[in-house]
């Protein structure tokens, strides 16, 4: 038998042990509260997979606006989304006439050669008339505001795109793990 002179000799924790635990917990609550008050700017991650003219807009509009809100924004471009970052291809993105419910023509007609170009030209004219920013302007403004436009390395390889093909300021050579890291901390995550 021990001859320990602790005030409580039973199996339970001593008063000092409990006091110590309470102190530890109190510190922990304080540090968690401090962290909750100081969690920095809001974060948003958008995964952009589409490279058609109309689908290029929503990620760029949301990203540039969120950056104006002071948010920390990543747009992860993959598959056809890469065409939006591709300096040459971004200027020739097409609106698809086939299967587009807003086109006032049957699919059989929409599938004829030249219809995509016609549909795109119609939309480009409307965009110019309406004072809507071009895709290139939105990319510039997004990069200026500190949006991180990322190009997925795996699809770059697949589509044989080089980092030099993209606008200056685009982050190339990143993968799903990089996107996930930002996404896990994000307040808003979107797949477009």
């Amino acid at each position, binding site marked *: 038998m021990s001859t320990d002179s602790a005030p409580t000799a039973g199996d339970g924790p001593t008063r000092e042990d409990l006091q110590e635990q309470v102190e530890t917990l109190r510190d922990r609550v304080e540090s968690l509260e401090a962290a909750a008050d100081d969690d920095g700017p809001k974060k948003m991650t958008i995964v952009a997979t589409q490279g058609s003219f109309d689908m290029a807009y929503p990620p760029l509009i949301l990203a540039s*606006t969120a950056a*104006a809100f002071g948010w920390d924004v990543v747009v992860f471009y993959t598959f056809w989304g890469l065409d939006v970052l591709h300096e040459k291809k971004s200027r020739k993105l097409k609106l698809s006439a086939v299967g587009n419910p807003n086109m006032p023509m049957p699919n059989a007609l929409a599938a004829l050669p030249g219809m995509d170009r016609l549909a795109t030209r119609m939309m480009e004219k409307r965009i110019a008339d309406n004072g809507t920013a071009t895709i290139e302007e939105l990319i510039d403004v997004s990069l200026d*505001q500190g949006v991180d436009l990322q190009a997925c390395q795996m699809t770059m390889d697949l589509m044989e795109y080089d980092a030099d093909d993209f606008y200056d300021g685009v982050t190339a050579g990143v993968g799903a793990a990089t996107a996930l890291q930002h996404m896990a901390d994000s307040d808003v995550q979107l797949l477009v």
Partner: protein
Amino acid sequence: MNTEFDIAETLDVKGASCPMPVIKTSEAVGDLDVGDVLEVLATDAGSMSDIDGWASSTDGVELLEQVDGGDVYKHYLRKTGE
């Protein structure tokens, strides 16, 4: 309708549509000195809601007044901090 504050800068974004009015406003407010008032002139009807939303969730800026002039929407914002 006239406003009673001294306007330090005027930003003309007439003809531009979403998201440019908010983005240009954000940039212009960034360039102001604390206390200065920015006047924004826009033709985008969405700017009434967008600039209000931006200002209310952004630190360091206060939306003083919005005027729906029919063709031109006027917004008055004061920079309250960095």
